[in-house]
């Protein structure tokens, strides 16, 4: 039996949650556990309207943790996030699933978090303080606290790309998800951020790919080299969708395709 406690504010929910309860956002992940009788005895949630807020000040965008994928798609100012949000779940799931929940969704879910990782988002916690999403993702299985909002810097035009590889179209679970933030100085790549889904226990940075891109002009020879080495150092899971071997084999090919499409090649 699961008891649900609903609090009027996020602060109250954060105080009430303790170690024996789980937080429930949009419900698309947690309710499956409730239905299966596998949820914790206590679930904590909140109706705090602040969680659904989207704020934009210039190129700094703040998404409340409770903002749904549909709310992102309905906001024309968030156009760079539309290709990401559109590929999350089904229309019904997009009306329910939230940005905050996506950060904590286990493999093979969490495609939006992959994009946030590439975009170098910062997460503001309910208890106060902000931290890079990379840090939060590393500790996400160890009760890091409740998320209040996520700050996403708007990428330069054409610098951000996203690709979700799935077997079923138009709605299928991710085999591999890739998000790439590729900024350039004088045509050469500077400090690219490549994020993978499906290539580790959760969203992970692609250190090998980032090294391979550093200081390079993007051309066919470079992309061919990148395709061969991009998965180095990654330990993708085997699941019913694909084996670890398969994911390692095709990851670089999909990354090269994504970068080619961002080049308009």
């Amino acid at each position: 039996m699961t008891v649900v406690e609903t609090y009027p504010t996020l602060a109250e929910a954060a105080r009430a949650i303790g170690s024996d309860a789980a937080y429930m956002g949009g419900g698309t992940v947690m309710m499956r556990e409730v239905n299966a009788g596998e949820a914790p005895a206590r679930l904590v949630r909140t109706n705090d309207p602040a969680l659904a807020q989207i704020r934009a000040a210039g190129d700094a965008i703040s998404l409340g943790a409770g903002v749904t994928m549909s709310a992102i798609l309905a906001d024309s100012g968030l156009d760079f996030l539309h290709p990401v949000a559109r590929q999350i779940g089904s229309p019904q799931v997009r009306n329910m699933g939230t940005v905050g929940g996506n950060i904590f969704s286990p493999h093979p879910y969490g495609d939006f978090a992959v994009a946030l990782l590439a975009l170098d988002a910062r997460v503001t916690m309910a208890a106060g303080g902000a931290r890079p999403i990379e840090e939060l993702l590393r500790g996400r299985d160890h009760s890091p606290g409740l998320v209040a909002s996520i700050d996403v810097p708007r990428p330069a035009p054409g610098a951000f790309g996203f690709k979700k590889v799935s077997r079923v179209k138009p709605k299928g679970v991710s085999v591999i998800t890739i998000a790439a933030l590729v900024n350039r100085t004088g045509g050469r790549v500077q400090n690219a951020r490549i994020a993978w889904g499906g290539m580790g226990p959760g969203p992970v940075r692609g250190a090998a790919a980032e090294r391979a891109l550093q200081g390079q002009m993007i051309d066919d020879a470079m992309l061919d080299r990148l395709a061969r080495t991009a998965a180095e150092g990654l330990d993708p899971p085997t699941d019913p969708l694909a084996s670890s071997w398969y994911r390692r084999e095709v990851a670089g090919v999909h990354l090269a395709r994504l970068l080619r499409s961002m080049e308009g090649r």
Partner: protein
Amino acid sequence: MAKMPVTLTLNGMERAGFADPGQNLLEFLRRGLGDLSPKYGCGQGTCGACTVTIDGETQLACLVLAETTEGRTVGTAAGLANGAELDPLQTAFMDHFAAQCGYCTPGMLVSARALLDRNPKPTREDIIEAISGNLCRCTGYEPIIEAILAVSEGRTGP
């Protein structure tokens, strides 16, 4: 454990019942309020058989806590017909053989109605996208897409 009183508007009528702690909206609608039109398929949000509208948006009733629908407006396939007068989508589904076993049909109809309500002239791609969260394992999707297209174009008959 104490049951929770829940009052909501279901297909235009105010309805009330008691929800168990942790009970999902699908069970509450079926067992508590007697609306058997939303179906239990997977209980995991994958199949779309339990699709309903909440405040006009399609959602999956199996993934919604019943107690969170207090005061909200819920629509199901049972509310599509006006007495004996079927929704044009229901007629088109019959005319185009868009239902075989029928288990996915209520969810398909709710998704299709929500699409046409916000976009009366959808493209074929819009329709495919709109029903992408509803699995059908009998007819294939083609007759369903055809039925929805026919309604959007004002065509009647098979």
